């Protein structure tokens, strides 16, 4: 359903307002999917890009790719040779796939990747690279068979993608936020206010050995040594409030 966007600008800003209020990753995916579909993009992915030989899966923030394509992409290690992914790391400007991929000069492997993508109706695409102080960070990539790639639409999608990435990153960190269990956080909180192992055991009505086990687990998860460092680290990461 590509076509005219009567007021792509206002529409994009309204979408960003809505997006800003969302927190649940699934809701973010759904609203982004609907929005991009209105421009004729049925597939999208927000992801970091691995170094050659590394895996892409742990770097994915939001996966809106068609069923089967992501699995194929990972299984075949397409990230190592994907010409679109390679270009993302070289530019701060959004680009259309057709601007950077030339079949006549592409390797057989690159042609295979683009051909397999087209089997999933991922024929024309658009990428918005995300950079921060350290350089390239992530990309918002999207594709369809007949998407609207007019200038105003690209501009609107560019902007929405920057917010979608920020939101995806915040949401993912949000869900991973607490790496400690409730019990581990309780134990550290009591230690933070100065209680001994026996003191914590008494307050929580558990055995001292159990307290020690919770503490050891928390220290391991946080990569910290010693009570003070573990408590400080837990506080810095927002696991406990003091």
């Amino acid at each position, binding site marked *: 359903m590509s076509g005219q966007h009567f007021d792509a600008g206002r529409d994009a800003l309204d979408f960003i307002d809505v997006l800003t209020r969302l927190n649940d990753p699934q809701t973010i995916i759904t609203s982004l999917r609907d929005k991009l579909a209105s421009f004729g993009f049925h597939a999208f992915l927000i992801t970091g890009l691995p170094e050659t030989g590394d895996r892409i899966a742990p770097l994915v923030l939001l996966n809106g790719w068609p069923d089967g394509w992501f699995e194929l992409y990972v299984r075949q290690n397409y990230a190592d040779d994907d010409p679109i992914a390679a270009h993302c790391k070289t530019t701060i400007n959004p680009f259309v796939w057709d601007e950077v991929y030339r079949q006549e000069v592409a390797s057989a492997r690159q042609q295979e990747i683009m051909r397999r993508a087209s089997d999933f109706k991922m024929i024309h695409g658009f990428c918005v690279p995300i950079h921060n102080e350290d350089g390239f960070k992530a990309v918002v990539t999207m594709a369809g068979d007949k998407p609207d790639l007019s200038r105003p639409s690209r501009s609107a999608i560019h902007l929405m993608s920057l*917010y979608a990435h920020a939101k995806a990153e915040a949401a993912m960190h949000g869900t991973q936020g607490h790496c400690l269990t409730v019990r581990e956080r309780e134990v550290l909180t009591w230690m933070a206010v100065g209680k001994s192992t026996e003191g914590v055991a008494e307050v929580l009505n558990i055995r001292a050995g159990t307290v020690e086990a919770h503490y050891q687990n928390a220290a391991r998860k946080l990569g910290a040594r010693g009570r003070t460092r573990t408590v400080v680290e837990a506080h810095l990461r927002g696991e406990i409030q003091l």
Partner: protein
Amino acid sequence: MIHIIDASNRRLYAEQIEEHFRIRHRIYVEERRWMELERPDGREVDQFDTDDAVYLLALKDGKVIGGSRLVPTLCPHLMSEVFPYLANIRGLQRGPDIVEWTRIFVVPEYRGRESAVLHTVLAGMLEYCLEQNFSAITVVMETWWMPRFLELGWEVKPLGLPTMIDGMSCIGTMISVTEEAWRNTLAFKRIAAPTLVDRRHGPRIIKERRTNHV
């Protein structure tokens, strides 16, 4: 530390202000090639460097290593005079409690992830705006910079769509001045607060405030 310099205390910083005009010329004209700003005296001074402008300069041993400029939005400013079309959807945002931020820079030796100078300037700017009870900062920026501010958890509202200007995508935005944004910016590079040196008047108090724009 970030020094606040306006018309009232400018004499105390005459040397540093001059140095900052020359650094701006080096960075904006010679490094970034914004050739319309080129001047034969090697000082980048534009129509918004008036008595209403407030400079935030990062000084180290009396030398300028970074800085930025704030201009009241009730005065002529970059977005209102040069790039009003960057606010063509939400409109220009002007008010006694809204300032425009322009000309942020860090000298080359103090750039990169190991340096906290850029974020100290950003935190200093928010700290100053909190003290002044400003509610928002408008800014014309290169679009690819936005993720850095979103990453800091700042509330950044676009006023229009990204637009190509001289081959570079630019955008007009408004940033809410909040204590949270200030604290996040400090925490990002573990910068100690306060960041400001203000040789203008008496003690300063940061108040809790809310924003109500757009």
